[in-house]
């Protein structure tokens, strides 16, 4: 067993970044995720591993610093919260277009606009459907515990490099701010070799020059590039991850990710105390979405409640997955309000069991 610590989710992200051999972090403060940069600075990450840590002048600058470092094959990341992630969308789209691996962390807060600093899950569409301009997808991981905040940093980097694609950890103010016990993984060395087939580290005589760009003035070539990207996004579907909670005998189902999944676990237990057999499917990857396991489960249940701290975003993917074969409803408090397990149970009884 590794080292046990009591940590905030945001701190776990930062510690995991150091241990995952991350080469650079570029960020800009915003609540509720400022602890990531604060931790990297107070821990002197630059001394522990030689990792570059820099506070940029804006989210725009931060994501473009990530773009630059990622162009050279480095393991590089940034983190922010919703309004800051909106600013980063330009750079994220460029990285998706140029096929650069990187890690982006969004500790979501309520919107739209400046919104609130309280937790929310209303950035689902932005995260899973692209976010910026153009046809692209990110690999999206949704941690539901501080442990996963740590574990997914490593996983996200591995997946990002496997597919040469930006990966996003979609967290929220609950998971970012809460403390739980976390078992830290061993320190990994930073990479010393880089894939010379694409990185821009200087043209050596033994190879052609490498160019990182997302530009193709010829639309036919750009279409071909898009075909290539789409084919990659299809391949990424092999990475689907999910967790089943009390599903084996379930007559009803809840679907929820991240902090809502934690709240639903409690709601499931409360419902089972009343003798109602409900299970929970927790998508761990939001892109790729676990459509097939959900379709499979839908065959045994009488109704599905999609729970999310939003006005109802993930429900669209839930409905697409089950092909209208079973009733699907949404429940969630939003704009920064966190639903309680009792509220979820109440909505479940009214919308699914009673309805």
């Amino acid at each position: 067993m590794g080292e046990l610590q009591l940590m905030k989710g945001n701190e776990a992200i930062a510690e995991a970044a150091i241990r995952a051999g991350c080469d650079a972090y570029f960020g800009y403060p915003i609540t509720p995720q400022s602890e990531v940069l604060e931790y990297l600075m107070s821990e002197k990450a630059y001394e522990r591993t030689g990792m570059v840590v820099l506070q940029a002048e804006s989210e725009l600058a931060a994501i473009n610093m990530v773009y630059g470092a990622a162009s050279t094959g480095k393991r590089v990341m940034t983190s922010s919260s919703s309004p800051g992630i909106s600013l980063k969308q330009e750079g994220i789209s460029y990285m998706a277009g140029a096929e650069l691996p990187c890690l982006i962390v969004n500790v979501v807060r309520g919107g739209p606009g400046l919104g609130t600093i309280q937790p929310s899950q209303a950035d689902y569409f932005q995260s899973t459907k692209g976010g910026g301009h153009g046809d692209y997808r990110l690999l999206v991981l949704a941690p539901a515990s501080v442990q996963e905040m740590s574990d997914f940093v490593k996983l996200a980097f591995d997946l990002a490099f496997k597919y040469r694609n930006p990966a996003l950890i979609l967290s929220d103010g609950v998971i970012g701010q809460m403390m739980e016990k976390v078992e830290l993984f061993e320190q990994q060395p930073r990479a010393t070799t880089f894939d010379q087939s694409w990185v821009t580290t200087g043209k050596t005589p033994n190879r052609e020059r490498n160019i990182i760009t997302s530009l193709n003035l010829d639309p036919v070539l750009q279409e071909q590039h898009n075909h290539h990207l789409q084919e990659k996004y299809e391949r990424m579907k092999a990475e689907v991850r999910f967790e089943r909670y009390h599903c084996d005998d379930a007559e009803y189902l809840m679907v929820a990710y991240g902090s809502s999944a934690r709240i639903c676990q409690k709601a499931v237990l409360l419902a089972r105390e009343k003798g109602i057999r409900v299970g929970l499917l927790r998508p761990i990857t939001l892109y790729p979405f676990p459509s097939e396991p959900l379709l499979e489960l839908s065959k045994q249940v009488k109704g599905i409640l999609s729970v999310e701290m939003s006005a109802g975003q993930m429900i669209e993917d839930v409905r697409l997955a089950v092909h209208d074969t079973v009733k699907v409803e949404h429940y969630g408090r939003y704009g920064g309000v966190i639903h309680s397990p009792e509220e979820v149970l109440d909505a479940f009884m009214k919308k699914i069991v009673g309805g």
Partner: protein
Amino acid sequence: MDIKDIIKPENLVYKRTPLLTSNTLSYCPGCGHGTTHRVIMEVIEEMGIQADTIGIAPVGCSVLAYDFMDIDMVQAAHGRAPAVATGIKRTWPEKFVFSYQGDGDLAAIGTSETIHCCNRGESIVIIFINNGIYGMTGGQMAPTTLVGMKSSTSPYGRDVAFMGNPLKITELVAQLPGTCFVTRQAVHTPAAVRKTKKAVRMAFENQKANKGLSFIEVVSNCNSGWKMTPVAANKWMEENMFPFYPLGDMKVDGRIVSKELLSLAGVKTE
């Protein structure tokens, strides 16, 4: 005498630097981009640093700079080249990194990135092409468009009360503590080209010595955007651009040398 009798190694007086690709330049005849590209590539070749140099292309006419420069290059989002350069330089401090940007890219949409990159003193080179207009999008007003100068979005001339003042961003960055070498040059005559090359060499030498940021403005014409012949555009540039954007060094080795800037700071130079 046949032309083949002339094309002989012993008759060679000028050739393309090996660090420029054989792709046909996409720039208009008479534009300063091609010359500036060549100057930079010559310096990289002469210093023998091709294997350690990464260039950042902007958005604008020179977005395709990577088609012409035979080095590893990264194309940046509009205005973000200094941030991209920062990301590379911070993770590869031993490499040579430069950005190549136009006036809209560097002095309008990318002002924040420019100022903060210069102020942090990133050890990189910024090459700034100022032709007072947005060339690629078809001749719109730039932050550097002169007062009274016509463009497609200031068709009756730049009116300060309405459109604001032209921005002398080079004078601005010269005053930041992070910049080491700041100069304004041109490439419209052989003499000017030689001076520019000297400046580019100094900038890369500064980077080698890790002295801070070197910033080279190249005042150029945009004969298509200005709707003039190349020759007329160069003459117009000398008569109108140079008085407002005077050529010469502003800061050398971290010390301000421009009389204008020193007098602004209250330092007597006479």
